[in-house]
């Protein structure tokens, strides 16, 4: 006698396994869209007296790179950084340079310490955030001025504390990204 098939047997967390596939648009588009939306935060109706908001675009970018290495190609710092520069208020080129360098530095860290974990990811993200915010403040213009760097300390603390939450958010987005939504015929 054949018992009834368990309805969950042909499913996994990403949906049905038969006759369904991942959507290329979601797989490649979702990381980019979430990072671009993070870069658009200066257009939000929030006017701050000082640099208080964490750099959401950069944190999203960092979280995607650390949580899902391989989703972002090595050269992605160039286009994403250029977009961030259009809205961040920094002189054009600062994010292009710093985001590209971030990709290279993370590649180096990954080659040196291949077995990663929560603490290592958080420490490398904190170090990169400190470098990014410090150098951004240094190059913010007018001119290069070291006295601006201490201004970003509260922002840096907030960014470091928020980073694990961003990593969890990216994990949720990643599950969304791999949903099998395309119907195969």
């Amino acid at each position, binding site marked *: 006698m054949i018992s009834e098939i368990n309805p969950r047997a042909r499913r996994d967390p990403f949906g049905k396994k038969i006759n369904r596939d991942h959507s290329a648009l979601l797989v490649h588009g979702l990381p980019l869209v979430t990072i671009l939306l993070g870069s658009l935060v200066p257009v939000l109706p929030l006017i701050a007296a000082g640099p208080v908001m964490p750099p959401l675009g950069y944190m999203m970018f960092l979280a995607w790179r650390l949580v899902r290495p391989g989703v972002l190609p090595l050269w992605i710092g160039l286009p994403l950084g250029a977009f961030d520069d259009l809205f961040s208020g920094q002189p054009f080129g*600062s994010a292009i*340079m710093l985001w590209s360098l971030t990709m290279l530095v993370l590649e180096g860290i990954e080659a040196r310490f291949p077995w990663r974990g929560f603490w290592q990811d958080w420490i490398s993200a904190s170090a990169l955030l400190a470098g990014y915010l410090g150098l951004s403040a240094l190059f913010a213009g007018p001119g290069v001025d070291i006295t601006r760097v201490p201004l970003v300390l509260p922002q840096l603390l907030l960014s470091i504390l928020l980073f694990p939450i961003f990593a969890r958010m990216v994990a949720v987005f990643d599950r969304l990204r791999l949903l099998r939504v395309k119907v195969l015929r």
Partner: protein
Amino acid sequence: MARPAHRRRGHSKKAQYSVFTGFVVAALGALAGAALLGISLWKPETFAGLREEATDVVAPAGEAGAAGRSGGLGLVDSIAGYFRAGAQNARLRAEAHAAHVQLAEADALREENRQLKALLGLKQSDAPPVAFALLVGSTSASTRRIAYLSAGRDQGVGPGMPVTSPRGLIGRVLEAGDSSARVLLITDGASMVPVRRANDEVVAFAQGRSDGTLRIRLINLGINPLKPGDVFVTSGAGGIYRPGTAVAVVSRVMRDGAIARVLANPAAAVEVAVEPVWVPGASQGESGAGTGKPSGADK
């Protein structure tokens, strides 16, 4: 967590080349970024066109948000109003009574002022604002203090025009796109406003410190006459900013100046006015300087 499999270099020449190309392009990206950054620092206006286009595209979304912000404020206030109606009514009645008296006094003062100005041969030069607009957002993650404005060239807004709220000076237009503009707030490190103390002729520069306060630098060094609570207004020296607009109030006195709080908090100002560039002596037919560099020696 193991290292991701996809970047393991196998024996495939093709895979090795593609990894190598990725590194080359990323390094080139970093170099290109450094070069662009150098150009931007050397000539900050180089990429203005690009930014204007981009801001024009996304500003409408921010505008909707900004309108919601003012609406939200009104909603909370209107609900809270029901709970305080009685006490508020009595207080407002008393205030209105006092205001009538002060209005009459102000009328008298205005008349006296007009007569004195006529005596001096000064012309009333309060040009009407170019445009009224919403402050959409600001660069809240960067140490630069730049805000986005919901009006641009189509509304007559141009670079250099001062932006004010009813409570005082906000900043000046840095770059203007077709329907949006970027405003350099007075708290930005690159902003320098010639000011004077409201009740006398102590002249100074108010320079932004990027953290919501201003550094008041006195022009005449010597004994520091400033006290906490002194209000500074624009002096109009050198042009751009019309004299008499409120700027900041001193909060901490230093040896050669003071740290001042901005009076018109851009976070609280939703609707702002864009004023025409003020040219000193224009009403008398002289040619004004109109540059951002105030001489500071005309007082």
